[in-house]
C-alpha cells in the first residue's frame, strides 16, 4: 500500500518525510517529529485534545492524514511561545488557572489562537461557542473563559 514523500512546515521549520498513507497527522507530529505537546485524547474526533492549526485553520489532527498536509503548514502548541516568551494565550491560562490536569490545554490554546485572530474582542458567548469542540473535564470552563479574555485584552494592548 502506498507511501508518500511529504514536505510541510511545522512551527515554521521545513520537515520532509516518507509516510504511509494511513499515518494520521497527530501520529506524524508526535512520533515522527517528537512534538508531544499535541495530545491524543478520545481518538474518536470528539475531544479536541489533538487540535493543531493546518494552513491557518484549527483542525482535529487525529482526523486528517499526514499526507493531506503535504505542501501545507502546521502550527502546534510548541509554536506559540516566541524567543522564550510565553504567548499571551499561554500567559492567560497560567494567570487565570485555565487548566488543572492540562491534558486539553494545548488543543484549547490552539483553538483560542484561531478564535482571537478572527474575533479579537469576543464576548463570553463567542468564547464558549468557539471552544465548544474542545472538551475539558476538570475546570468547568469558567477559568478557561477568563484565560481567553485575559489573552484577548493582552493581545489588543500589545497590538495597539
Amino acid at each position, binding site marked *: 500500500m*502506498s507511501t508518500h514523500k511529504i514536505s510541510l512546515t511545522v512551527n515554521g521549520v521545513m520537515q520532509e518525510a516518507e509516510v504511509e498513507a*494511513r*499515518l494520521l497527522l497527530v501520529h506524524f507530529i508526535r512520533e515522527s517529529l517528537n512534538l508531544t505537546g499535541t495530545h491524543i485524547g478520545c481518538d474518536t*474526533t470528539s475531544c479536541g485534545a489533538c487540535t493543531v492549526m493546518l494552513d491557518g485553520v*484549527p*483542525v482535529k489532527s487525529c*482526523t486528517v492524514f499526514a*499526507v*493531506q498536509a503535504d505542501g501545507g503548514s502546521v502550527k502546534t502548541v510548541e509554536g506559540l511561545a516566541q524567543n522564550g516568551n510565553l504567548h499571551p494565550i499561554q500567559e492567560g491560562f497560567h494567570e487565570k488557572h485555565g487548566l488543572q490536569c492540562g491534558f486539553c490545554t494545548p488543543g484549547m490554546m490552539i483553538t483560542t489562537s484561531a478564535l482571537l485572530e478572527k474575533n479579537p474582542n469576543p464576548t463570553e458567548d463567542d468564547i464558549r461557542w468557539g471552544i*465548544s469542540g474542545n472538551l475539558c473535564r476538570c475546570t468547568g470552563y469558567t477559568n478557561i473563559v477568563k484565560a481567553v479574555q485575559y489573552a484577548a485584552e493582552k493581545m489588543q494592548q500589545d497590538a495597539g
Partner: protein
Amino acid sequence: MIPPKFDYQAPTNLEDALALLSANAEAKILSGGQSLIPMMRFRLASPQVVVDINRIDGLSYIREEDGWLKIGAMTRESTLDESDLVKSKYPLLADTAKMIADPLVRNRATVGGNLAHADPANDHPATMLAYGAEIVATGPGGPRVIPVSDFFVGPFEPALEHNEILTEVRIPQANGSSGGAYMKLERKVGDFATAAVAVQLKLAADGTCESVGIGLTNVGLTPIRASEAEAVLRGKALTDAAIKEAAGLAAAAADPEPDYRGSVEYKKSLVKTLTVRALRLAAERARGGAA
C-alpha cells in the same frame, strides 16, 4: 486507532478522480474526512483506494445563479456558517451549518460529504429535503441531476453510482416571502441529533402557506420527508391548530429506534415539539421578509 492500509491518490482534476473510481471498485472518495476517517479507524470502512478530492480546484463555492443557490460539494461547513449570503437569505441553511458537529469538525467537513455519506443522523439531508434541493452528480458521461427526495436510498446508501462524484447541491433561490428554520436537540455539542426538524415554507400574498417542506433528522433508517404534514398545511392559514395538526403528522412519520438518546415515544414527541417550533419560526421569518 490506526486505519487499515490503503492506496492514497490525490488527483487535481475531476476527470482523473472519476477515472480512479472507474478503475477501482473498492475506491472511496475522501472529502472532509470527518466521517470517513473515524469509520476507517473503527474498521467500519476499509477502502483499498482513497481518492482525496481536496486538491481539485473549483468545487468550493456558494452563489446564486439561474434561480438557484448553488453550493459546491467541497464547501466547508465553516464557510457556509460564515457566508453573508446564507446568513441573510437562507436561515434554514444558516441554522443547520451552526449545529453540525463542532467548530473544529466544521472547519474540515464539507456539504457534499455530509450528503453523500447518506447518514440519517447527518443534518444536511433533512435540510435539503425541506428545501426541495437537487443534487448534481458527475460521472464519466458528465453531470446529472437527482432530486434530493430520490437521493437517500437507504442508510449510508446514496443514489450515486460507484463512478460518480457529488459535485453540487442547489436549492431554489430565496424570495421575500419564504422562510425556514432548523430545530435540533443534541445532548451535547458534537453529538448526533436526538431528533431534528427542518422546515422551509413560502407564504402567499394573503398570508396562507403556499408551499412547505419538512425534513426529519435521525428518526429513521433514512432522512424522512414528512409529506403528510406538508400536505395539510398547503393552502392553509398557519393557525395554531393547523401547526399542531401538521406536527402530529410529522411525529407519525418518524420511525425512530430506541437508544441511549431516548425511547421511541420520547423521540416522536420531540419531533412534534420541534416541528411546532420550526414552523412558527419559519413563518415568522417569512413574514419578516428576511427570507
